[in-house]
């Protein structure tokens, strides 16, 4: 082969090898980037007045008077929406109108009984009113404009009838007058469709602005407030302004989504202009403000993590990891010390080393099975504790899992201490034990600490071992180590896959996993810095 080609191939190889490393960096950025970006919005976002109301109700945070004033202002901007819809519904909700007419008729009948009229008068009045009612009902139910107008005209004839002056039956005529005003500009043939679609609009509005004024407070906390975040509000606004249809293209083909402006669906009615009004005035109705919700990391959450933060999850994760460290550090350091200082290369030591390697290779889910079979079902009942998943069992399982990591890190740290340190101490007449405790251990401490932090970060992220031994997706904050707890790791899993409610709040889904990742990244950064400083120091710089 010509040297030129060989050198060219060599260059290409260098580029390809470099590309593989660049690819690694890109993967890291590609994994962390979207998660950090979207998870960050759980903490820093534009909060609306609904968010501040929710904070006040759930956590008692914020200035009550200020929020009340703010929500009053918002109410003023919102009032037009509700009045327009109310009016529009007056024309199309025939069932409600018919009910109203019937009620008035019944009321009138009751009233008649109390007055001092003769029986004939009463009977006549009744029959007239019944006729009015029936015509009115047919006007409400009919979709034919001519028929409606005729019926209404009939009813309105009685407007100046002295018999009905100042009686409850006058309500029927009022109803007719209102109705003739309301249906002005409404295509009556479309009434059924309007009725369904206005219901849809109302549902979206409830999500956007909270329950309409005058309705009962919903039982579930998540339904009590409108869109708490501006991005959510924007999404809902899109749903509000665009009508979504799935259209069949033909047999065997997938359905296609089609969006039409909702104002078109209500063309010619008063609702048509409402969407532009909402679009224009949404900031006034919700009053978005940049919010930094640091309490996300301490707050408890409502079911499904709909509102609130990840406080209990962080607490649970810290409890599990710290307890696991308390179990594993003594064993890890002593084992490492023995392996470095006392052990010679014989069969027993080889078996021990093989066990450590095996332990490191055991899949985490098998640790979960072991934790369930040993700690939960065997060990805890041995001491009279209830045989159920709890923090103690989970942290002991995690301690076993992280034992090899701990031993290896400590061993490396102890080995890194220069031989001269030990020799100097031994030469001064210190015993080997004394030398280890007073000289080797202090010198190796940063390295051991690095190992502890790395084990911590591994333990904090493990999910499979705690699945059956003490993690729950929902539950109260643990009162003792014999209670199960929520953890960040299991919470992340549950929010991504298990929880339907959580899918409605993607910022909280990402917020949970980002909290976990950040916790672990911080721990790792500390470990990396500590280690590089230790190696510099031991190298004598």
């Amino acid at each position, binding site marked *: 082969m010509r040297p030129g080609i060989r050198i060219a191939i060599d260059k290409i*190889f260098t580029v390809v090898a470099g590309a*593989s490393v660049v690819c690694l960096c890109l993967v890291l950025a590609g994994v962390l980037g979207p*998660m950090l970006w979207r998870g960050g919005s759980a903490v820093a976002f534009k909060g609306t007045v609904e968010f501040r109301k929710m904070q006040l109700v759930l956590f008692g945070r914020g200035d009550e008077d200020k929020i009340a004033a703010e929500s009053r202002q918002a109410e003023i901007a919102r009032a037009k929406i509700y009045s327009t819809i109310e009016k529009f519904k007056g024309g199309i909700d025939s069932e409600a109108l018919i009910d109203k007419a019937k009620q008035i008729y019944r009321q009138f009948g009751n009233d008649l009984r109390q007055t001092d009229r003769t029986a004939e008068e009463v009977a006549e009045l009744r029959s007239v009113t019944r006729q009015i009612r029936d015509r009115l009902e047919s006007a409400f139910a009919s979709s034919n404009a001519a028929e409606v107008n005729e019926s209404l005209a009939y009813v309105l004839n009685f407007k100046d009838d002295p018999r009905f002056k100042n009686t409850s039956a006058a309500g029927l005529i009022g109803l007719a007058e209102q109705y003739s005003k309301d249906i002005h500009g409404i295509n009556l043939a479309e009434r059924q469709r309007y009725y369904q679609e206005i219901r849809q609009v109302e549902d979206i509005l409830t999500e956007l602005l909270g329950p309409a004024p005058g309705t009962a407070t919903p039982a579930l906390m998540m339904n009590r407030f409108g869109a708490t975040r501006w991005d959510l509000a924007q999404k809902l606004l899109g749903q509000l302004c665009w009508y979504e249809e799935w259209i069949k293209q033909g047999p065997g083909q997938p359905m296609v989504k089609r969006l039409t402006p909702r104002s078109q669906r209500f063309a010619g009615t008063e609702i048509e202009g409402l969407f532009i009004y909402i679009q224009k005035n949404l900031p006034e109705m919700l009053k978005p403000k940049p919010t930094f919700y640091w309490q996300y990391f301490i707050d408890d959450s409502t079911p499904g993590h709909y509102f609130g933060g990840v406080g209990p999850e962080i607490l649970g994760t810290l409890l599990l990891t710290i307890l696991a460290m308390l179990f594993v550090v003594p*064993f890890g350091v002593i084992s490492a010390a023995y*392996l470095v200082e006392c052990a010679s290369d014989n069969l027993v030591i080889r078996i021990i080393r093989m066990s450590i390697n095996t332990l490191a290779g055991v899949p985490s889910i098998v640790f979960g099975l072991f934790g369930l079979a040993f700690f939960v079902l065997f060990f805890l009942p041995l001491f009279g504790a209830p045989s159920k998943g709890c923090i103690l069992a989970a942290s002991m399982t995690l301690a076993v899992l992280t034992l090899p990591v701990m031993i290896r890190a400590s061993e490396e740290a102890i080995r890194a201490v220069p031989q001269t340190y030990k020799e100097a101490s031994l030469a001064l007449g210190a015993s080997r034990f004394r030398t280890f405790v007073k000289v080797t251990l202090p010198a190796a401490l940063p390295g051991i600490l690095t190992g502890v932090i790395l084990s911590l970060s591994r333990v904090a*992220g*493990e*999910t499979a071992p705690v699945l059956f031994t003490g993690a729950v997706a929902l539950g109260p904050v643990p009162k003792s180590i014999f209670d199960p707890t929520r953890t960040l790791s299991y919470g992340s899993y549950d929010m991504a896959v298990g929880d339907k409610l959580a899918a409605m709040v993607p910022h909280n889904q990402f917020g949970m996993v980002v909290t976990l990742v950040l916790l672990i990244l911080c721990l790792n950064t500390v470990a990396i810095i500590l280690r590089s400083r230790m190696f510099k120091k031991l190298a004598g710089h």
Partner: protein
Amino acid sequence: MRGFLTLHLGRTALFLVTCTSVLAVFLIFLFVVREAMPFLAKFSIKEFLTSTAWYPEAVPPKFGTLALLVGSGYVTIVSIIFAVPVGILAAVFLSDIVSMKIRNIIKPIIEILAAIPSVAYGFFAVMVLAPWMQEKFGFSTGTNALNASLILAVMALPTIISVSEDSISAVGRELREASYGCGATRMETIFKVVIPAAHSGIIAGIVLGMMRAIGETMVVWMASGNAAQIPSPWWDLSQSVRTLTATIAGDMGETEKGSPHYRALFAAGLLLLVIILCLNMVSEYFLIRAKQAGGKR
């Protein structure tokens, strides 16, 4: 005399503490076998290993793990196919091509890649990668074998890179310089001299990466789609598969303690443990060989 006694007593105490690891391994085996034993005694082991029907709640229940075994193997092998070229190239790049300075920048990146918890990778697979794949490639589901394999490849990479890089670095200067002296280019040196000399360590790294991929639970549970089937045709990566680990994790929450299903899951755990142990022995063998090869030079 007293000094002698304390020395030996102290040593014995330290030794006993050190034996915790052995005890732990022993207990893990003992308790997994203990819970699985009634199942192994009652059901046919042959059917357990060769049937593809995993219907634990049917009457009568069927516990065939072949589809699950194939699923585990399938995602592992695909992920290794993705990870090995990138991993070896990256290891070579770090050990032979770049300066110490750049290496010190890249190493923490690999460490962070290894530190990200599996549940976060799984979350990424479900929430980001799956919708993207579904949209981009028109797969019927975004959670499939390809998705799981890609993520497993990323998770196996740090192990493969660090173990192979160690053994590639351990190949002495003399070998490299002899090769350069003969007029070989860097690529030729690496492929014809360095990698053959370091092959034990590289194989050990690959096996360790495989162990990580087989034993991984959260990612496959979340990203593989969990359909207990053998992919057909076998090259179609867009199908859902189900692995042993995901089955244990997914089913255990719903079984009654002591039921045949529960026992069968422990038997599946035992199967997994045995597979991992075999792989572990293979990796140990190659690691020891790598050490000996390093010692000779």
